[in-house]
């Protein structure tokens, strides 16, 4: 079975994905606290513009405005019954934008986390998580998404539930996790753990990787962690444009377009194939990233030092891979 993404990957050394959704929508007037997915219905013109800006800046692939479009998240806005519909519209708008270009543009149906903690630690059962993801997947499929795109996941249980749901929807997919806690996901998963987990899935993704997290340097360290596991599967790098800073009452990300251009080239040299941004990444960042990927020749795999020299320090000394893993301090002692 061939899909648009697999076809594109076969012809290219790298693919430029898109940047931020939330940051861009807030600039268009989205009020904090409102569900961005409502705009699919209320302001389809703005969502079309969001997609178009990314493609015009050079993106080969963009994510639909459906990150929080699952029933668990929409419930907080009293819109849990609209998960399938709002997801479908996000993809329909995406399809209509993508088909206007005379080059291949991939519509990737964004699927974000449920925001719940899964059983046994939390209340969300595997079955219910599969159902929630499946509903959204069907909506994105109906709307014409080329692939499904799971992102910002922190628990492997949730990643697995999504993989199962996407099989039910019979859709190809990609999936990234967010490594934001001492180089690991919030739930403690390392880059090596994820690379291993992905290969064990019954319905593995076309590509896997990392998104969001804490800054461009950390994200590339995570990519190097994936590569070290020797996976043949394409790797995704979608890092934030630096770190959010507070200035005179508003927030901005400190990563310049030039820094993100360096990040994109380093991501490719580190071994990532699908490269994009996340929070704070605007069209001007994407343009510079595209130009840099086209103009600068592929270099050797960067070292950790080269990454920090170019992009700034890591947020933590270690990321839980390699030899220097802190061991749990206690375990149940036994009587001699």
């Amino acid at each position, binding site marked *: 079975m061939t899909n648009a993404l697999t076809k594109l990957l076969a012809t290219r050394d790298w693919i430029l994905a898109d940047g931020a959704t939330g940051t861009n929508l*807030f600039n268009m007037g989205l009020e904090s*606290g409102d569900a961005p997915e409502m705009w699919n219905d209320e302001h389809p013109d703005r969502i079309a513009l969001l997609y178009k800006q990314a493609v015009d800046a050079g993106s080969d692939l963009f994510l639909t405005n459906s990150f929080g479009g699952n029933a668990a998240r929409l419930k907080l806005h009293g819109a849990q019954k609209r998960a399938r519909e709002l997801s479908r519209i996000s993809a329909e708008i995406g399809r209509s934008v993508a088909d206007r270009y005379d080059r291949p543009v991939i519509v990737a149906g964004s699927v974000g986390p449920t925001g719940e*903690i899964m059983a046994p630690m939390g209340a969300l059962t595997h079955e219910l998580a599969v159902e929630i993801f499946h509903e959204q997947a069907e909506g994105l499929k109906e709307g014409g998404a080329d692939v499904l795109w799971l992102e910002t996941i922190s628990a492997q249980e949730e990643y697995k539930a999504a993989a199962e749901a996407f099989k039910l929807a019979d859709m190809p997919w990609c999936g990234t996790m967010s490594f934001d806690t001492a180089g690991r996901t*919030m739930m403690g998963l390392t880059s090596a753990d994820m690379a291993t987990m992905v290969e064990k899935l019954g319905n593995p993704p076309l590509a896997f990787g990392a998104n969001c997290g804490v800054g461009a340097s950390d994200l590339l360290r995570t990519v190097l962690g994936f590569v070290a596991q020797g996976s043949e599967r394409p790797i995704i790098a979608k890092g934030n444009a630096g770190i959010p800073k*507070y200035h005179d009452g508003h927030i901005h990300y400190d990563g310049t377009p030039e820094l993100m251009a360096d990040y994109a080239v380093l991501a490719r040299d580190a071994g990532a194939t699908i490269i994009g941004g996340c929070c704070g990444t605007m069209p001007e960042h994407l343009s510079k990233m595209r130009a840099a990927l086209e103009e600068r020749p592929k270099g050797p795999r960067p070292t950790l030092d080269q990454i920090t020299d170019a992009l700034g320090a890591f947020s933590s000394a270690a990321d839980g891979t390699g030899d220097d893993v802190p061991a749990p*301090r206690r375990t*149940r002692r036994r009587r001699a």
Partner: protein
Amino acid sequence: MSDEEDDIILSELDDEELVQQMFDDLYDGLKEEIEEGVNILLERGWQPYQVLTEALVGGMTIVGKDFRDGILFVPEVLLAANAMKGGMAILKPLLAETGAPRVGKMVIGTVKGDIHDIGKNLVSMMMEGAGFEVVDLGINNPVENYLEALETEEPDILGMSALLTTTMPYMKVVIDTLIEQGKRDDYVVLVGGAPLNEEFGRAIGADAYCRDAAVAVETAKDFMSRKHNKLAAG
């Protein structure tokens, strides 16, 4: 569970060994063992407050430190907090009966426009693990919710959480309202959330920014001891 582990008979350990064992069992999130340990200590005549502070809070402090240092992660902390909760359920009515001193009380909530709660829930659990009484207002709280809860609950600490760069400025709205009403100094205000930093905490007039749940607990304890010292001196 292996046979060897089954060999530990909690009731055969002396007090000191038992407390050490309870530290380990909290670390491993073993709820039944913690409940058993609490009951044994009570039967041996320990005051409920002593069981709380020496066995449970002591154990959770170790969990908190390892969480802070990136050795334990959210799943382990949730398990430990759940075990702690088992012990607390036994102690709570007894603590009330015996008029035990209050460690401190906190009102906490995610600010208006923000619906994230995993981080806030972790702080709640870790604060409870440290013996604090916690009133959780949940997500998406306008300033009125905070004011009402401060009025009715009379906490020592107000905690606010935000996970979005677009909602974190709302913390300043709450603090400014407290200043306007002359209530700011009645509470210690702690703020936290992924996009925040110390600079931001200072800029909006919070008492402290807490990087994670473990730091929140340490900071809260620190402020409570300062408050007690002040009362004692005054």
